[in-house]
């Protein structure tokens, strides 16, 4: 710890904790414990030297490469005399922006479909099969509530970790330990077997303009997945860049999580370069053995060749690749965009993602790990 000094030391502590506060306001997780570490580090360095202060802060207050650019900006601004303004000055993106009115010509169809709803069917059944892009705000709220209740049961896979069991292979450790307890007589043989654990899911949600009517629902589905298996789920948003949003989705309340996500994603409603995003995904999240879920309509702004090449790599690494396309729910839909055609050969399951029923099917697919599809090389998890 820095030794107690006169008024100067107190000023120093105030200045440095102020800096940590600035970082927190900018979204760096510079919490109390880290700030303590920062002050301790400064005690070992020269507080008058700018580089020393810079590195002391960067080493103790940052937690990942995403923090570094923010740190640099804050450092430059704060030590040039700027102070954090009280309160939140940023305009927050409200989630309602995502669930905007249905777009394009579908507006007219909506009225027709609503009147065609059979009066006998229960409200829920109707909602379950309706395209979320054509819903009213109230219906959407109902669907959101049901999505939050979705049970994200996950397919199990074998792990390298052992657990005691009644049958399996001999657990020599426990057997001998027990024998020692009984004076060296191996009275009972103890067995062990490989424990199973949930299969990891890596989900990529396209938040580009063409996906805007579905992005909110998809992210809520992702939230249900994260809530069910927080340690075996990774979620990224794909717009003009790839953003890891798993941490934001960990919050229990779906609305709070959505708000956090809307703040974290810098590139709503832009274009997508899926090939590039998948390439980044291959680097950021190890897809080995995971089920990779890509939610996109395949409107690729980049080159389809790149997308095809990256999908090929992805399919070689991942356990299975599930592509969720909101438009697949439309019986007239044909996968004809260049992007989806390039990706199609490498997709294990090509599924719809436009209605609650479609999401329930997707959840069932992730729970069972199979849809009776072509790929059968799945290991049983015994």
């Amino acid at each position: 710890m820095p030794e107690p000094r006169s008024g100067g030391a107190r000023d120093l502590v105030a200045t440095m904790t102020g800096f940590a506060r600035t970082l927190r306001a900018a979204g760096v997780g510079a919490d109390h414990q880290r700030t303590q570490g920062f002050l301790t580090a400064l005690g070992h360095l020269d507080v008058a030297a700018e580089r020393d202060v810079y590195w002391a802060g960067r080493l103790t207050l940052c937690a990942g490469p995403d923090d570094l650019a923010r740190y640099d900006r804050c450092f430059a601004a704060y030590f040039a005399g700027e102070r954090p303004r009280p309160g939140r000055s940023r305009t927050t993106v409200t989630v309602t922006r995502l669930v905007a009115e249905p777009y394009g010509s579908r507006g007219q169809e909506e009225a027709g479909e609503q009147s065609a709803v059979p009066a006998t069917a229960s409200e829920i059944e109707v909602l379950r099969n309706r395209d979320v892009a054509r819903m009213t705000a109230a219906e959407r709220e109902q669907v959101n509530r049901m999505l939050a209740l979705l049970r994200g049961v996950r397919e199990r896979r074998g792990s390298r970790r052992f657990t005691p069991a009644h049958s399996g292979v001999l657990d020599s450790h426990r057997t001998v330990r027990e024998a020692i307890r009984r004076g060296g007589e191996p009275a009972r043989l103890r067995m062990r077997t490989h424990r199973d654990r949930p299969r990891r899911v890596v989900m990529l949600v396209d938040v580009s303009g063409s996906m805007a009517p579905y992005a909110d629902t998809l992210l809520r589905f992702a939230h249900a997945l994260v809530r069910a298996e927080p340690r075996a789920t990774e979620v990224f948003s794909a717009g003009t860049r790839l953003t890891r949003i798993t941490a934001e989705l960990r919050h229990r309340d779906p609305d709070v999580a959505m708000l956090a996500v809307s703040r974290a994603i810098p590139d709503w409603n832009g274009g997508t370069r899926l090939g590039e995003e998948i390439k980044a995904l291959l680097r950021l999240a190890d897809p080995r053995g995971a089920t990779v879920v890509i939610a996109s309509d395949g409107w690729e702004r980049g080159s389809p060749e790149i997308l095809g090449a990256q999908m090929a790599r992805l399919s070689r690494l991942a356990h299975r690749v599930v592509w969720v396309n909101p438009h697949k729910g439309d019986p007239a839909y044909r996968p004809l965009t260049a992007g989806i055609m390039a990706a199609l050969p490498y997709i294990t399951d090509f599924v719809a993602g436009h209605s609650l029923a479609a999401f329930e099917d997707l959840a069932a697919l992730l729970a069972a790990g199979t849809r009776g599809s072509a790929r059968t090389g799945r290991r049983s998890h015994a």
Partner: protein
Amino acid sequence: MLGGTTKASDIDSPATVAELLARHDYLADEGLATAAFLALRMGRPLFLEGEAGVGKTELAKTLSAVLGAPLIRLQCYEGLDAAQALYDWDFARQLLHLKAAEATGVTDVRALEGEIYDRRFLIARPLLQALETQPSVLLVDEIDRADDEFEAFLLEVLSDFTISIPELGTISAATPPVVVVTSNRTREVHDALKRRCLYHWLEHPGFEREVAILLRRLPECTERLATEVARTAGLLRAADLVKPPGIAETLDWTEALLTLGATDFDPGLAAATLGAVLKHREDQELVRRDGILLAGAATGAGGGMATGAGAARGEAGRRA
């Protein structure tokens, strides 16, 4: 002996750390030197993240050489458990001891119990070894490969550098080992663990540093070859590759070129040894198609030192 060994307490500034590391042929930049300095002074683990091949593991090895402390390495993998990472009882020997005692007619059960759970029947795995060896450098390599169960007990050990063994009591380190944790970031490591550590993100070295590293590590390498290899490496990193080469790959490549008797960067030899630096077929194809090797050699011949990695990168950017 070049420099010999140094006690952690004698190191008084990041510059000293950089100098000591340099004596053992590890050229650290300001950030890494400060990180290592603070890790030594604050007794905190150093959490190093970065692409594969930027010198994370090498730093731990060099620190161990600088401090003259043995390097204890724990390679992480899925399913790594306490019996592999902390300690294990040597059951076979315990059993033998028990049988021997029985044969000689020992009847004092309590004494026998004490004997069986004695330190000599305990097998120390890396984490316990590191606490018992002083001084030592503990390298927890590629923690992102382990699972959360392992993170949980690593956190426990790194929080107060003690391990409690139910049958034996608590073992703690008088002076905690220097700990280096590395991650390739294929998985987000839990924040609680990172919070215990000093966090440093390692970048690929800049052009000048890379030249300096090549010359330092490979004494027979000419300055011209080092300059041209480093420049080509810069071009390769700027190109759109599946796996951009790290400093480890550049060193391998230069060594391969030297083995073939190169004194400057010959595109033909470079193409023949491309497998030392690029390990993906797609990458090799892309490099051959775009003529990056020729570009590396050409700028080398024309520009000399002045072009620098920045200019080389800009050029690659335009081509892409």
